[in-house]
């Protein structure tokens, strides 16, 4: 009897927890979509912001965010791919594997604001770049490095050894094995990681707010050392003037656009992953 009651109690807890989480999910997306859709319009998307963001649109913020995240992807991807290849194909020592894991997971765990602080000290002050969008892209590239490395490493490392041995038996050099055998199969994992990383990078505020962005009077930067406008920092600035209903409405509009951008990246990542799974099942 008591066992039965415990079981009922357990089910009740589980069901109410999930009901609560479901309600939360509906609330969050409901708010973002409802408030967002009523805030955006053609004008909002394609005109520059005026009056400290309370009026006008967010065209330069959208362009700035896309510029930041594409540049960071271009910087990060080759480095991450090389590191993943090294970790998978050249690093045979067990102890160094452990060291590399600690470094990668450590970097992955660094709070995003610390990247901002690091960029502020090293680039803005020590190297004297000043507030620059390119520095922001470098910092975002560092931030997404572990995501890409891990994803690429897992997919390259999971290729059966027999492929490598077969290629080597044909007289391939190590690099030819990598280029002709491992990369064609492993590149999907690296691209998945890249897209996941970009989805994270485009939404980040803390790493870029001290070092890369300016709030008003910025359009498309014409050199590497100019500030840029970005969606997350724009939302931050608007959220701080939340008593002004116009500013708040524009903040919701910018949030909605930001979410759409994030989802574009993460859904593409999902598609690539699903496609890879169906291929490997054949």
């Amino acid at each position, binding site marked *: 009897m008591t066992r039965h009651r415990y079981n009922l109690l357990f089910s009740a807890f589980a069901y109410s927890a999930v009901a609560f989480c479901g309600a939360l999910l509906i609330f969050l997306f409901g*708010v*973002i979509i409802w408030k967002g859709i009523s805030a955006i319009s053609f004008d909002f998307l394609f005109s520059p912001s005026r009056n400290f963001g309370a009026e006008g649109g967010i065209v330069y913020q959208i362009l700035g965010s896309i510029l930041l995240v594409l540049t960071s992807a271009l910087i990060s991807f080759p480095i991450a791919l090389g590191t993943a290849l090294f*970790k998978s194909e050249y690093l045979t020592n067990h102890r160094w594997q452990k060291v590399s894991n600690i470094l990668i997971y450590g970097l992955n765990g660094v709070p995003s604001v610390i990247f901002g602080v690091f960029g502020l000290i090293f680039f803005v002050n020590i190297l004297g770049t000043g507030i620059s969008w390119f520095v922001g892209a470098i910092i975002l590239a560092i931030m997404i490095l572990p995501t890409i490395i891990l994803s690429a490493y897992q997919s390259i490392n999971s290729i059966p050894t027999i492929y490598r041995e077969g290629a080597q038996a044909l007289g391939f050099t190590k690099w030819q094995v990598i280029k002709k055998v491992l990369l064609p199969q492993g590149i999907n994992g690296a691209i998945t990681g890249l897209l996941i990383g970009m989805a994270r990078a485009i*939404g980040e505020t803390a790493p870029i707010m001290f070092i890369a962005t300016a709030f008003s009077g910025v359009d498309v930067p014409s050199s590497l050392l100019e500030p840029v406008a970005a969606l997350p920092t724009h939302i931050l600035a608007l959220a701080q003037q939340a008593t002004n209903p116009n500013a708040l409405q524009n903040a919701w509009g910018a949030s909605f656009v930001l979410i759409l951008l*994030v989802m574009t990246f993460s859904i593409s990542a999902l598609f690539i992953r699903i496609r890879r799974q169906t291929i490997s099942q054949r």
Partner: protein
Amino acid sequence: MSASTNKIGKGYVVGSTLLSAFIVLLILVVLIANSWSAVSANGWSLLSFKWNPPTQQFGILTMLYGTILVTSIALFLAIPLGIFTAFFTSEILPSKYRILVKSMLELLAGIPSIIYGLIGVAFLSIWVQNVFDLQTGRTFLTAGVLLAIMILPTVITLTDDALQNVPDKYREAALGLGLYKYEVVKYALLPIAKRNIVGAILLAFGRAMGETMAVMLVIGSLDKIPQPFYNVLSSGQTITSKLGREISESSFGSVHFSAMIFMGLLLLSIVMILTIVAQRNFKTEDRLYD
């Protein structure tokens, strides 16, 4: 020809690895070097409760306490909620809906923290203000609840993975003995999945401590220990909100700046240790239950 491309290829691979490792070390070295002047100028007085830049007092304990308080509130709310939801998604929900649940969780985890901050400012802080009849809704509680919502997807998805990793034969054997569902969970699944669930909690702990934007917007940014110390309905300050608010006001090279970096380094050390310990928990080297 192929020998030289082989060399170039190896050079590229080794070079990018060295660059990655160099970046990690550079971050540590830069932070340590720049926090040094605060340590040498203030010594043990860094570990006090007084933060007052004009009088060169830089005690970081108020912020550390704020971080711990906010994180504790978040974990206190998110862990039971997350674990029970994971029991549901893993053990009660038919497995054909799992992909749906997983993608929902991924969507939630993908919401940028600044948007949580906006929701906190526009809704949560106003609710807290009205419900508890406060002067301001920007309190430890608001930040803690918001953080709980933010780490919930992490807790759910990792706990769900941990439970799913337990092979079905354990469930079947336990059910065959006539156990109820909660007994299956308690006696068969939890003992095996425990390590990974602890890992999930540590990872969520680290995330919560390092979260900046949402906390910064709703904590109130007041450098004070609440009175009494457990009063979660007062405004406060965490390490991350302090960094976010004040680092651009302090000039590079000053003791003030250096004290901020020291605080960041402390946060980084705690979060890194949590992350690395958590990662150890996820290793399934013991193939006991294969």
